[in-house]
Protein backbone atom coordinates (compact mmCIF):
# COMPACT_ATOMS: atom_id res chain seq x y z
CA UNK A 1 0.00 0.00 0.00
CA UNK A 2 1.55 3.27 -1.06
CA UNK A 3 0.59 6.61 0.31
CA UNK A 4 0.68 9.88 -1.53
CA UNK A 5 -0.74 8.42 -4.71
CA UNK A 6 -2.35 11.77 -5.46
CA UNK A 7 -0.44 14.85 -4.50
CA UNK A 8 -1.48 18.40 -4.93
CA UNK A 9 -0.29 21.90 -5.32
CA UNK A 10 -1.87 24.47 -3.00
CA UNK A 11 -2.30 28.03 -4.19
CA UNK A 12 -3.43 31.03 -2.20
CA UNK A 13 -4.32 34.13 -4.19
CA UNK A 14 -4.77 37.44 -2.39
CA UNK A 15 -6.29 35.72 0.62
CA UNK A 16 -7.43 37.89 3.53
CA UNK A 17 -9.27 37.13 6.72
CA UNK A 18 -10.90 39.59 9.06
CA UNK A 19 -12.53 38.78 12.36
CA UNK A 20 -15.12 40.94 14.11
CA UNK A 21 -16.92 43.98 12.79
CA UNK A 22 -16.69 47.76 12.93
CA UNK A 23 -14.22 49.13 15.46
CA UNK A 24 -13.40 45.66 16.73
CA UNK A 25 -12.39 44.34 13.33
CA UNK A 26 -9.05 42.55 13.32
CA UNK A 27 -7.18 41.57 10.18
CA UNK A 28 -5.61 38.18 10.86
CA UNK A 29 -4.45 37.53 7.31
CA UNK A 30 -3.74 40.42 4.97
CA UNK A 31 -3.69 39.82 1.21
CA UNK A 32 -1.47 36.75 1.12
CA UNK A 33 -0.49 34.97 -2.07
CA UNK A 34 1.50 31.78 -1.81
CA UNK A 35 2.22 28.90 -4.15
CA UNK A 36 2.99 25.56 -2.53
CA UNK A 37 4.29 22.93 -4.91
CA UNK A 38 3.52 19.22 -5.06
CA UNK A 39 5.52 17.20 -2.52
CA UNK A 40 6.71 20.33 -0.81
CA UNK A 41 7.22 20.61 2.95
CA UNK A 42 6.14 24.21 3.44
CA UNK A 43 6.57 25.81 6.83
CA UNK A 44 4.46 28.76 7.92
CA UNK A 45 6.64 30.40 10.54
CA UNK A 46 5.92 33.41 12.68
CA UNK A 47 5.25 34.70 16.18
CA UNK A 48 1.95 34.16 18.01
CA UNK A 49 -0.92 36.04 16.40
CA UNK A 50 0.78 36.52 13.03
CA UNK A 51 -2.06 34.73 11.21
CA UNK A 52 -0.26 31.49 10.33
CA UNK A 53 -2.83 29.19 11.95
CA UNK A 54 -5.69 31.17 10.41
CA UNK A 55 -4.07 30.72 7.00
CA UNK A 56 -3.81 26.97 7.58
CA UNK A 57 -7.42 26.80 8.76
CA UNK A 58 -8.54 28.54 5.59
CA UNK A 59 -6.78 25.86 3.52
CA UNK A 60 -8.55 23.25 5.67
CA UNK A 61 -11.92 24.93 5.27
CA UNK A 62 -12.36 25.56 8.98
CA UNK A 63 -12.39 29.31 8.28
CA UNK A 64 -13.77 31.11 5.24
CA UNK A 65 -11.52 33.73 3.64
CA UNK A 66 -12.95 37.25 3.72
CA UNK A 67 -11.34 37.81 0.32
CA UNK A 68 -9.19 35.89 -2.13
CA UNK A 69 -9.11 32.34 -3.47
CA UNK A 70 -7.78 29.04 -2.20
CA UNK A 71 -6.88 26.39 -4.76
CA UNK A 72 -6.03 22.75 -4.09
CA UNK A 73 -4.81 21.13 -7.27
CA UNK A 74 -6.70 22.93 -10.01
CA UNK A 75 -9.85 23.38 -7.99
CA UNK A 76 -10.94 26.53 -6.26
CA UNK A 77 -12.07 25.20 -2.88
CA UNK A 78 -13.42 28.34 -1.20
CA UNK A 79 -16.95 26.97 -1.22
CA UNK A 80 -16.04 23.36 -0.66
CA UNK A 81 -16.71 21.58 2.63
CA UNK A 82 -13.57 20.49 4.52
CA UNK A 83 -14.35 16.82 3.94
CA UNK A 84 -14.31 17.33 0.17
CA UNK A 85 -10.91 19.03 0.05
CA UNK A 86 -8.80 15.88 0.22
CA UNK A 87 -6.79 17.12 3.17
CA UNK A 88 -5.97 15.81 6.63
CA UNK A 89 -5.03 17.92 9.59
CA UNK A 90 -3.03 17.26 12.74
CA UNK A 91 -3.96 19.58 15.57
CA UNK A 92 -1.76 20.96 18.32
CA UNK A 93 -3.94 19.17 20.88
CA UNK A 94 -4.04 16.05 18.64
CA UNK A 95 -7.88 16.02 18.82
CA UNK A 96 -8.05 12.27 19.40
CA UNK A 97 -11.38 10.77 20.42
CA UNK A 98 -10.69 9.93 24.08
CA UNK A 99 -13.33 7.17 24.32
CA UNK A 100 -12.08 5.27 21.28
CA UNK A 101 -9.12 2.92 21.14
CA UNK A 102 -6.06 3.74 19.03
CA UNK A 103 -7.36 1.36 16.38
CA UNK A 104 -10.82 2.97 16.38
CA UNK A 105 -9.28 6.44 16.22
CA UNK A 106 -7.17 5.55 13.20
CA UNK A 107 -10.02 3.73 11.48
CA UNK A 108 -12.60 6.43 12.13
CA UNK A 109 -12.03 8.55 8.99
CA UNK A 110 -12.35 5.39 6.88
CA UNK A 111 -15.45 4.25 8.75
CA UNK A 112 -17.11 7.59 8.03
CA UNK A 113 -16.34 7.08 4.36
CA UNK A 114 -17.98 3.68 4.40
CA UNK A 115 -14.79 1.67 3.78
CA UNK A 116 -15.52 -2.07 4.40
CA UNK A 117 -14.44 -3.33 7.82
CA UNK A 118 -11.71 -5.70 6.67
CA UNK A 119 -10.14 -3.09 4.39
CA UNK A 120 -10.13 -0.36 7.00
CA UNK A 121 -8.63 -2.73 9.57
CA UNK A 122 -5.82 -3.52 7.14
CA UNK A 123 -5.21 0.13 6.28
CA UNK A 124 -5.27 1.20 9.92
CA UNK A 125 -2.76 -1.52 10.73
CA UNK A 126 -0.51 -0.33 7.93
CA UNK A 127 -0.68 3.29 9.09
CA UNK A 128 0.02 2.14 12.64
CA UNK A 129 2.95 0.14 11.38
CA UNK A 130 4.40 3.16 9.56
CA UNK A 131 4.34 5.08 12.85
CA UNK A 132 5.33 2.22 15.15
CA UNK A 133 1.98 2.00 16.91
CA UNK A 134 1.01 -1.62 16.36
CA UNK A 135 1.60 -2.54 20.02
CA UNK A 136 -0.81 0.10 21.26
CA UNK A 137 -3.85 -0.56 19.08
CA UNK A 138 -6.12 -1.56 21.97
CA UNK A 139 -5.18 1.33 24.23
CA UNK A 140 -7.12 4.53 24.62
CA UNK A 141 -5.45 7.94 24.14
CA UNK A 142 -5.43 8.55 27.91
CA UNK A 143 -3.13 5.55 28.33
CA UNK A 144 -0.53 6.89 25.87
CA UNK A 145 2.35 9.32 26.27
CA UNK A 146 2.32 12.68 24.48
CA UNK A 147 4.58 11.39 21.72
CA UNK A 148 2.45 8.30 21.16
CA UNK A 149 -0.72 10.39 21.00
CA UNK A 150 0.94 12.61 18.48
CA UNK A 151 1.78 9.59 16.36
CA UNK A 152 -1.82 8.35 16.58
CA UNK A 153 -2.94 11.75 15.28
CA UNK A 154 -0.48 11.36 12.41
CA UNK A 155 -1.66 7.83 11.71
CA UNK A 156 -5.24 9.04 11.60
CA UNK A 157 -4.16 11.62 9.07
CA UNK A 158 -2.14 9.33 6.80
CA UNK A 159 -4.72 6.54 6.75
CA UNK A 160 -6.90 8.79 4.62
CA UNK A 161 -4.17 9.16 2.00
CA UNK A 162 -4.94 12.84 1.57
CA UNK A 163 -3.42 15.04 -1.10
CA UNK A 164 -2.32 17.59 1.49
CA UNK A 165 -1.32 17.26 5.14
CA UNK A 166 -1.93 20.26 7.34
CA UNK A 167 -0.18 20.44 10.71
CA UNK A 168 -0.84 23.09 13.30
CA UNK A 169 2.08 23.20 15.76
CA UNK A 170 1.95 19.42 16.25
CA UNK A 171 5.12 19.27 18.35
CA UNK A 172 4.54 22.13 20.73
CA UNK A 173 3.08 19.92 23.48
CA UNK A 174 6.08 17.60 23.53
CA UNK A 175 9.16 17.89 25.70
CA UNK A 176 12.41 19.05 24.12
CA UNK A 177 13.95 15.62 23.52
CA UNK A 178 10.80 14.09 22.07
CA UNK A 179 10.35 17.16 19.91
CA UNK A 180 13.80 16.61 18.41
CA UNK A 181 13.10 12.92 17.73
CA UNK A 182 9.68 13.60 16.24
CA UNK A 183 11.10 16.29 13.95
CA UNK A 184 13.29 13.68 12.35
CA UNK A 185 10.37 11.25 12.12
CA UNK A 186 8.20 13.84 10.41
CA UNK A 187 10.84 14.60 7.81
CA UNK A 188 11.20 10.88 7.21
CA UNK A 189 7.42 10.52 6.96
CA UNK A 190 7.26 13.31 4.41
CA UNK A 191 9.88 11.57 2.34
CA UNK A 192 8.06 8.23 2.51
CA UNK A 193 4.59 9.62 1.84
CA UNK A 194 5.78 11.95 -0.87
CA UNK A 195 2.84 14.26 -0.15
CA UNK A 196 2.44 18.00 0.26
CA UNK A 197 2.89 19.10 3.87
CA UNK A 198 1.91 22.51 5.21
CA UNK A 199 3.26 22.94 8.70
CA UNK A 200 2.60 25.79 11.08
CA UNK A 201 5.10 26.61 13.81
CA UNK A 202 6.52 29.47 15.82
CA UNK A 203 9.70 27.48 16.41
CA UNK A 204 12.42 28.53 14.01
CA UNK A 205 14.43 25.38 14.71
CA UNK A 206 11.54 23.27 13.37
CA UNK A 207 11.32 25.57 10.38
CA UNK A 208 15.02 25.40 9.61
CA UNK A 209 15.35 21.64 10.06
CA UNK A 210 12.17 20.36 8.44
CA UNK A 211 10.98 22.65 5.72
CA UNK A 212 11.84 22.51 2.06
CA UNK A 213 10.68 26.13 2.08
CA UNK A 214 9.75 28.54 4.81
CA UNK A 215 7.21 31.36 4.67
CA UNK A 216 7.99 33.83 7.44
CA UNK A 217 4.87 35.68 8.54
CA UNK A 218 4.39 38.84 10.55
CA UNK A 219 1.21 40.76 11.33
CA UNK A 220 -0.91 38.89 8.81
CA UNK A 221 1.55 39.22 5.92
CA UNK A 222 4.30 37.08 4.47
CA UNK A 223 7.67 38.75 4.92
CA UNK A 224 9.70 36.21 2.97
CA UNK A 225 9.41 32.84 1.28
CA UNK A 226 12.50 30.80 0.61
CA UNK A 227 14.56 27.77 1.55
CA UNK A 228 15.68 27.77 5.19
CA UNK A 229 19.22 28.63 4.08
CA UNK A 230 18.07 31.52 1.88
CA UNK A 231 15.96 32.94 4.66
CA UNK A 232 18.89 32.69 7.04
CA UNK A 233 21.55 33.97 4.67
CA UNK A 234 19.58 36.75 3.03
CA UNK A 235 16.69 37.80 5.28
CA UNK A 236 14.29 39.98 3.31
CA UNK A 237 13.56 42.27 6.22
CA UNK A 238 14.83 43.29 9.62
CA UNK A 239 11.94 41.29 11.14
CA UNK A 240 13.02 38.07 9.42
CA UNK A 241 16.64 38.76 10.34
CA UNK A 242 15.70 39.00 13.99
CA UNK A 243 13.21 36.12 13.96
CA UNK A 244 15.49 33.52 12.34
CA UNK A 245 18.64 32.51 14.13
CA UNK A 246 19.55 31.88 17.76
CA UNK A 247 20.73 34.17 19.15
CA UNK A 248 19.10 36.64 16.75
CA UNK A 249 20.99 38.95 14.40
CA UNK A 250 22.55 42.05 15.97
CA UNK A 251 20.69 45.05 14.55
CA UNK A 252 22.76 48.19 14.95
CA UNK A 253 21.19 51.61 15.39
CA UNK A 254 20.53 53.52 12.16
CA UNK A 255 23.69 55.19 10.92
CA UNK A 256 26.18 52.87 12.66
CA UNK A 257 28.42 51.26 10.00
CA UNK A 258 26.12 52.68 7.32
CA UNK A 259 24.33 55.73 6.04
CA UNK A 260 21.54 57.61 7.78
CA UNK A 261 18.73 55.74 6.02
CA UNK A 262 20.11 52.24 6.55
CA UNK A 263 20.12 49.86 9.48
CA UNK A 264 22.91 47.33 9.52
CA UNK A 265 22.58 43.79 10.87
CA UNK A 266 25.33 41.27 11.71
CA UNK A 267 24.84 37.60 12.65
CA UNK A 268 26.58 36.71 15.96
CA UNK A 269 28.91 34.27 14.18
CA UNK A 270 30.10 37.06 11.86
CA UNK A 271 30.92 39.47 14.66
CA UNK A 272 34.60 38.82 15.35
CA UNK A 273 36.84 40.10 18.13
CA UNK A 274 39.27 42.47 16.54
CA UNK A 275 41.56 44.94 18.28
CA UNK A 276 40.84 48.36 16.84
CA UNK A 277 37.53 47.19 15.30
CA UNK A 278 34.80 49.78 14.71
CA UNK A 279 32.41 48.44 17.37
CA UNK A 280 33.72 48.75 20.90
CA UNK A 281 32.07 47.76 24.14
CA UNK A 282 32.42 46.04 27.48
CA UNK A 283 31.78 42.34 28.04
CA UNK A 284 28.65 41.96 30.20
CA UNK A 285 28.10 38.20 30.08
CA UNK A 286 29.85 35.08 28.83
CA UNK A 287 27.72 32.01 28.02
CA UNK A 288 29.68 28.75 27.68
CA UNK A 289 27.58 26.34 25.62
CA UNK A 290 30.27 23.70 25.11
CA UNK A 291 30.61 23.80 21.33
CA UNK A 292 30.52 27.59 21.30
CA UNK A 293 30.73 30.62 23.54
CA UNK A 294 28.29 33.53 23.37
CA UNK A 295 29.85 36.82 24.27
CA UNK A 296 27.48 39.60 25.30
CA UNK A 297 28.81 43.12 25.25
CA UNK A 298 27.31 46.52 26.02
CA UNK A 299 28.38 49.06 23.45
CA UNK A 300 27.45 52.45 22.11
CA UNK A 301 25.48 50.52 19.49
CA UNK A 302 23.44 48.70 22.11
CA UNK A 303 23.86 45.12 23.26
CA UNK A 304 25.94 42.99 20.91
CA UNK A 305 26.15 39.20 20.89
CA UNK A 306 29.09 37.42 19.29
CA UNK A 307 29.53 33.68 18.78
CA UNK A 308 33.17 32.78 19.42
CA UNK A 309 35.24 29.63 19.31
CA UNK A 310 35.64 28.12 22.81
CA UNK A 311 39.26 27.31 21.92
CA UNK A 312 40.09 31.00 21.46
CA UNK A 313 41.01 33.43 24.22
CA UNK A 314 37.72 34.44 25.87
CA UNK A 315 37.62 37.96 27.36
CA UNK A 316 36.40 38.24 30.94
CA UNK A 317 33.28 40.08 32.10
CA UNK A 318 34.06 43.78 32.41
CA UNK A 319 36.85 43.68 29.85
CA UNK A 320 36.83 46.23 27.00
CA UNK A 321 36.60 44.61 23.56
CA UNK A 322 36.34 45.66 19.93
CA UNK A 323 34.42 43.86 17.19
CA UNK A 324 34.57 43.88 13.44
CA UNK A 325 32.67 42.14 10.63
CA UNK A 326 33.58 41.41 7.01
CA UNK A 327 31.71 43.64 4.51
CA UNK A 328 30.01 40.64 2.84
CA UNK A 329 28.44 39.74 6.19
CA UNK A 330 26.74 43.07 6.71
CA UNK A 331 22.97 42.97 6.06
CA UNK A 332 21.47 46.35 5.19
CA UNK A 333 17.81 47.20 5.78
CA UNK A 334 15.86 50.32 4.97
CA UNK A 335 15.68 52.38 8.17
CA UNK A 336 11.97 53.13 7.70
CA UNK A 337 10.42 50.04 6.11
CA UNK A 338 12.88 47.43 7.39
CA UNK A 339 13.13 45.94 3.89
CA UNK A 340 16.50 44.60 2.76
CA UNK A 341 18.42 46.98 0.54
CA UNK A 342 21.46 44.86 -0.24
Amino acid at each position, binding site marked *: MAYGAHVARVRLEHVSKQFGEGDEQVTAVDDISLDIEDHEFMILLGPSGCGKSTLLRMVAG*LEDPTAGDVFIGDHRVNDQLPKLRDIAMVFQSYALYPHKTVRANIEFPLKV*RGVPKAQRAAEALHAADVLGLTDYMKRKPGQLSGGQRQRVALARAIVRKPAVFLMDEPLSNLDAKLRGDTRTELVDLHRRLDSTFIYVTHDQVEAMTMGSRVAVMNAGRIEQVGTPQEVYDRPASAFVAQFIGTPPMNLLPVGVLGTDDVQVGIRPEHLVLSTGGPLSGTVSMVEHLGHEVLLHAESGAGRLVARVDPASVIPAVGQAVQFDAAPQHLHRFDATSGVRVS
Partner: protein
Amino acid sequence: MATDAVRGARKVGRYSLLVFVAVVVLFPIYAVLLQALKSGPDAFDHPRSLLPVDLTLDTIRAAWTEGDLGHLLMNSLFVSSVVTVGVIVTSLLAAYAFAFLNFPLKGATFALFLATMLVPAEVTVVINQRTADSLGWMNSYQGLIVPSLASTFGVFLVRQVFLQIPKELREAASLDGVGHMRFLYEVAAPLSRPTLGALGLFTFLGTWNAYLWPSQVINDDEHRTIQIGLNSLKTPNDISKFNLLTGGLVVAALPIFIMLVVFQRQLVRGLTAGAVKG
Protein backbone atom coordinates in the same frame (compact mmCIF):
# COMPACT_ATOMS: atom_id res chain seq x y z
CA MET B 1 -2.97 23.73 69.34
CA ALA B 2 -5.69 21.34 70.42
CA THR B 3 -4.67 18.59 72.82
CA ASP B 4 -5.55 14.94 72.17
CA ALA B 5 -8.35 15.11 74.74
CA VAL B 6 -9.95 18.13 73.10
CA ARG B 7 -9.58 16.54 69.69
CA GLY B 8 -11.16 13.31 71.00
CA ALA B 9 -14.06 15.22 72.51
CA ARG B 10 -14.65 17.04 69.25
CA LYS B 11 -14.69 13.74 67.43
CA VAL B 12 -17.21 12.31 69.86
CA GLY B 13 -19.36 15.43 69.44
CA ARG B 14 -19.18 15.27 65.67
CA TYR B 15 -20.08 11.60 65.51
CA SER B 16 -22.89 12.02 68.03
CA LEU B 17 -24.40 14.67 65.80
CA LEU B 18 -24.03 12.46 62.74
CA VAL B 19 -25.66 9.53 64.55
CA PHE B 20 -28.52 11.77 65.67
CA VAL B 21 -29.12 13.04 62.11
CA ALA B 22 -28.91 9.51 60.75
CA VAL B 23 -31.53 8.35 63.25
CA VAL B 24 -33.82 11.25 62.34
CA VAL B 25 -33.51 10.40 58.64
CA LEU B 26 -33.67 6.64 58.95
CA PHE B 27 -36.37 6.30 61.62
CA PRO B 28 -39.37 6.91 59.30
CA ILE B 29 -37.98 4.38 56.85
CA TYR B 30 -37.49 1.88 59.68
CA ALA B 31 -41.01 2.53 60.96
CA VAL B 32 -42.62 2.08 57.54
CA LEU B 33 -40.63 -1.07 56.86
CA LEU B 34 -41.59 -2.53 60.22
CA GLN B 35 -45.27 -1.63 59.77
CA ALA B 36 -45.24 -3.30 56.40
CA LEU B 37 -43.79 -6.45 57.91
CA LYS B 38 -46.45 -6.81 60.60
CA SER B 39 -50.07 -7.89 60.61
CA GLY B 40 -52.68 -5.14 60.99
CA PRO B 41 -53.35 -5.64 64.73
CA ASP B 42 -49.63 -6.02 65.54
CA ALA B 43 -48.86 -2.81 63.69
CA PHE B 44 -51.42 -1.05 65.85
CA ASP B 45 -50.01 -2.38 69.10
CA HIS B 46 -47.87 0.54 70.33
CA PRO B 47 -45.08 0.71 71.43
CA ARG B 48 -44.46 -2.97 70.62
CA SER B 49 -45.10 -2.05 66.96
CA LEU B 50 -41.65 -0.46 66.84
CA LEU B 51 -39.83 -3.66 67.80
CA PRO B 52 -38.72 -6.06 65.10
CA VAL B 53 -40.85 -8.96 66.34
CA ASP B 54 -43.81 -10.90 64.94
CA LEU B 55 -42.69 -10.19 61.39
CA THR B 56 -44.72 -11.48 58.45
CA LEU B 57 -45.02 -10.91 54.71
CA ASP B 58 -48.81 -11.23 54.83
CA THR B 59 -49.45 -7.49 54.67
CA ILE B 60 -47.24 -7.05 51.62
CA ARG B 61 -48.92 -10.05 49.96
CA ALA B 62 -52.34 -8.61 50.72
CA ALA B 63 -51.35 -5.17 49.43
CA TRP B 64 -49.98 -6.75 46.24
CA THR B 65 -53.27 -8.55 45.57
CA GLU B 66 -55.77 -5.96 46.74
CA GLY B 67 -54.01 -3.01 45.20
CA ASP B 68 -53.22 -4.83 41.94
CA LEU B 69 -49.65 -3.60 42.50
CA GLY B 70 -48.20 -5.74 39.71
CA HIS B 71 -50.22 -3.82 37.14
CA LEU B 72 -49.41 -0.45 38.77
CA LEU B 73 -45.69 -1.28 38.85
CA MET B 74 -45.70 -2.20 35.19
CA ASN B 75 -47.44 1.09 34.35
CA SER B 76 -44.90 3.07 36.35
CA LEU B 77 -42.02 1.13 34.86
CA PHE B 78 -43.31 1.73 31.33
CA VAL B 79 -44.00 5.43 31.82
CA SER B 80 -40.74 6.10 33.67
CA SER B 81 -38.66 4.21 31.10
CA VAL B 82 -40.20 5.99 28.12
CA VAL B 83 -39.88 9.40 29.79
CA THR B 84 -36.26 8.68 30.74
CA VAL B 85 -35.27 7.69 27.21
CA GLY B 86 -37.24 10.65 25.83
CA VAL B 87 -35.61 13.18 28.14
CA ILE B 88 -32.13 11.87 27.31
CA VAL B 89 -32.82 12.08 23.57
CA THR B 90 -34.38 15.56 23.66
CA SER B 91 -31.71 16.86 26.05
CA LEU B 92 -28.94 15.57 23.77
CA LEU B 93 -30.46 17.18 20.68
CA ALA B 94 -31.25 20.55 22.26
CA ALA B 95 -27.97 20.70 24.17
CA TYR B 96 -26.07 19.95 20.96
CA ALA B 97 -27.75 22.87 19.23
CA PHE B 98 -26.98 25.21 22.11
CA ALA B 99 -23.39 24.02 22.44
CA PHE B 100 -22.21 23.43 18.87
CA LEU B 101 -24.44 25.29 16.42
CA ASN B 102 -24.64 28.97 15.70
CA PHE B 103 -28.05 30.47 15.06
CA PRO B 104 -29.62 33.89 15.54
CA LEU B 105 -30.70 34.78 19.09
CA LYS B 106 -29.00 31.70 20.49
CA GLY B 107 -28.15 33.35 23.81
CA ALA B 108 -31.62 34.83 24.22
CA THR B 109 -33.28 31.52 23.39
CA PHE B 110 -31.18 29.71 25.93
CA ALA B 111 -31.94 32.33 28.59
CA LEU B 112 -35.66 31.94 27.87
CA PHE B 113 -35.22 28.20 28.13
CA LEU B 114 -33.58 28.51 31.53
CA ALA B 115 -36.19 30.99 32.69
CA THR B 116 -38.84 28.26 32.49
CA MET B 117 -37.08 26.60 35.43
CA LEU B 118 -38.30 29.50 37.56
CA VAL B 119 -41.93 28.57 36.94
CA PRO B 120 -43.19 26.01 39.48
CA ALA B 121 -45.06 23.00 38.12
CA GLU B 122 -48.09 23.89 40.26
CA VAL B 123 -48.55 27.08 38.23
CA THR B 124 -48.80 25.29 34.91
CA VAL B 125 -50.66 22.18 35.97
CA VAL B 126 -54.16 23.50 35.31
CA ILE B 127 -53.44 24.88 31.86
CA ASN B 128 -51.49 21.73 30.98
CA GLN B 129 -54.41 19.60 32.07
CA ARG B 130 -56.74 21.63 29.84
CA THR B 131 -54.34 21.17 26.93
CA ALA B 132 -54.19 17.44 27.56
CA ASP B 133 -57.98 17.36 27.77
CA SER B 134 -58.41 19.25 24.52
CA LEU B 135 -56.05 16.79 22.82
CA GLY B 136 -58.09 13.87 24.14
CA TRP B 137 -55.15 12.68 26.20
CA MET B 138 -56.92 12.24 29.52
CA ASN B 139 -56.58 8.67 30.81
CA SER B 140 -53.91 7.76 28.27
CA TYR B 141 -50.22 6.95 28.26
CA GLN B 142 -49.46 9.89 25.98
CA GLY B 143 -51.09 12.17 28.55
CA LEU B 144 -48.75 10.76 31.18
CA ILE B 145 -45.65 10.71 29.02
CA VAL B 146 -45.54 13.45 26.40
CA PRO B 147 -45.59 16.52 28.69
CA SER B 148 -42.52 15.15 30.50
CA LEU B 149 -40.44 14.30 27.44
CA ALA B 150 -38.31 17.45 27.54
CA SER B 151 -36.45 18.75 30.57
CA THR B 152 -34.87 22.18 30.86
CA PHE B 153 -32.60 20.88 33.57
CA GLY B 154 -31.53 18.04 31.28
CA VAL B 155 -30.73 20.40 28.41
CA PHE B 156 -28.75 22.66 30.74
CA LEU B 157 -26.81 19.78 32.30
CA VAL B 158 -25.87 18.17 28.97
CA ARG B 159 -25.02 21.52 27.39
CA GLN B 160 -22.52 22.23 30.17
CA VAL B 161 -20.78 18.93 29.46
CA PHE B 162 -20.82 19.52 25.70
CA LEU B 163 -19.20 22.92 26.19
CA GLN B 164 -16.19 21.16 27.71
CA ILE B 165 -15.59 19.05 24.61
CA PRO B 166 -12.63 20.68 22.83
CA LYS B 167 -13.63 22.40 19.62
CA GLU B 168 -10.73 20.67 17.85
CA LEU B 169 -12.62 17.39 18.20
CA ARG B 170 -15.56 18.82 16.28
CA GLU B 171 -13.19 20.29 13.70
CA ALA B 172 -11.24 17.05 13.31
CA ALA B 173 -14.52 15.21 12.86
CA SER B 174 -15.75 17.69 10.26
CA LEU B 175 -12.50 17.21 8.30
CA ASP B 176 -13.22 13.49 8.39
CA GLY B 177 -16.66 14.17 6.94
CA VAL B 178 -18.64 13.61 10.13
CA GLY B 179 -22.01 15.38 10.18
CA HIS B 180 -23.77 16.75 13.25
CA MET B 181 -25.88 13.69 14.05
CA ARG B 182 -22.95 11.35 13.67
CA PHE B 183 -20.73 13.53 15.83
CA LEU B 184 -23.50 13.58 18.43
CA TYR B 185 -23.85 9.82 18.71
CA GLU B 186 -20.27 8.79 17.94
CA VAL B 187 -18.40 11.39 19.97
CA ALA B 188 -20.40 13.88 22.04
CA ALA B 189 -22.87 11.45 23.63
CA PRO B 190 -20.29 8.76 24.54
CA LEU B 191 -18.08 11.43 26.10
CA SER B 192 -21.03 12.57 28.24
CA ARG B 193 -22.00 9.13 29.49
CA PRO B 194 -21.62 9.75 33.23
CA THR B 195 -23.79 12.85 32.99
CA LEU B 196 -26.36 11.10 30.82
CA GLY B 197 -26.45 8.27 33.36
CA ALA B 198 -27.11 10.69 36.19
CA LEU B 199 -29.73 12.54 34.16
CA GLY B 200 -31.44 9.24 33.32
CA LEU B 201 -31.47 8.18 36.95
CA PHE B 202 -32.87 11.50 38.12
CA THR B 203 -35.52 11.49 35.45
CA PHE B 204 -36.52 7.93 36.24
CA LEU B 205 -36.76 8.72 39.96
CA GLY B 206 -38.70 11.90 39.31
CA THR B 207 -41.17 10.19 36.99
CA TRP B 208 -41.55 7.18 39.25
CA ASN B 209 -42.34 9.39 42.24
CA ALA B 210 -44.50 11.89 40.30
CA TYR B 211 -47.87 12.43 41.90
CA LEU B 212 -49.27 15.81 40.90
CA TRP B 213 -49.40 15.41 37.12
CA PRO B 214 -50.50 11.74 36.96
CA SER B 215 -53.26 12.53 39.45
CA GLN B 216 -54.52 15.25 37.08
CA VAL B 217 -54.61 13.25 33.86
CA ILE B 218 -55.35 9.71 35.03
CA ASN B 219 -58.66 8.68 36.45
CA ASP B 220 -58.97 5.05 35.43
CA ASP B 221 -57.44 1.80 36.67
CA GLU B 222 -55.81 0.87 33.39
CA HIS B 223 -53.30 3.76 33.23
CA ARG B 224 -52.82 4.46 36.90
CA THR B 225 -49.20 4.60 38.10
CA ILE B 226 -48.07 3.17 41.41
CA GLN B 227 -47.99 6.45 43.34
CA ILE B 228 -51.61 7.19 42.45
CA GLY B 229 -52.71 3.59 42.76
CA LEU B 230 -51.52 3.36 46.37
CA ASN B 231 -54.54 5.49 47.30
CA SER B 232 -56.76 2.48 46.86
CA LEU B 233 -54.93 0.81 49.75
CA LYS B 234 -56.13 3.42 52.22
CA THR B 235 -58.50 1.62 54.55
CA PRO B 236 -58.96 4.04 57.46
CA ASN B 237 -61.96 2.23 58.92
CA ASP B 238 -60.54 -1.27 58.98
CA ILE B 239 -57.96 -1.66 61.73
CA SER B 240 -57.00 -5.13 60.58
CA LYS B 241 -55.87 -3.68 57.25
CA PHE B 242 -54.75 -0.24 58.29
CA ASN B 243 -51.10 -0.95 57.40
CA LEU B 244 -51.91 -2.16 53.86
CA LEU B 245 -50.76 1.21 52.57
CA THR B 246 -47.33 0.88 54.16
CA GLY B 247 -47.04 -2.56 52.57
CA GLY B 248 -47.77 -0.93 49.21
CA LEU B 249 -45.28 1.85 49.92
CA VAL B 250 -42.50 -0.65 50.49
CA VAL B 251 -43.31 -2.39 47.22
CA ALA B 252 -43.39 0.97 45.39
CA ALA B 253 -40.05 2.05 46.86
CA LEU B 254 -38.22 -1.22 46.31
CA PRO B 255 -37.37 -0.80 42.58
CA ILE B 256 -36.11 2.72 43.21
CA PHE B 257 -34.05 1.57 46.18
CA ILE B 258 -32.42 -1.16 44.09
CA MET B 259 -31.71 1.31 41.27
CA LEU B 260 -30.07 3.77 43.64
CA VAL B 261 -27.87 1.11 45.17
CA VAL B 262 -26.79 -0.14 41.74
CA PHE B 263 -26.25 3.28 40.15
CA GLN B 264 -25.13 5.46 43.06
CA ARG B 265 -21.57 5.65 41.78
CA GLN B 266 -22.84 6.78 38.40
CA LEU B 267 -25.00 9.40 40.09
CA VAL B 268 -22.13 10.95 42.01
CA ARG B 269 -19.77 10.80 39.05
CA GLY B 270 -22.33 12.39 36.74
CA LEU B 271 -23.02 15.29 39.02
CA THR B 272 -19.38 16.04 39.64
CA ALA B 273 -18.28 15.38 36.05
CA GLY B 274 -16.60 18.43 34.63
CA ALA B 275 -16.31 20.04 38.03
CA VAL B 276 -12.60 19.41 37.79
CA LYS B 277 -11.09 19.57 34.36
CA GLY B 278 -9.10 16.49 33.63
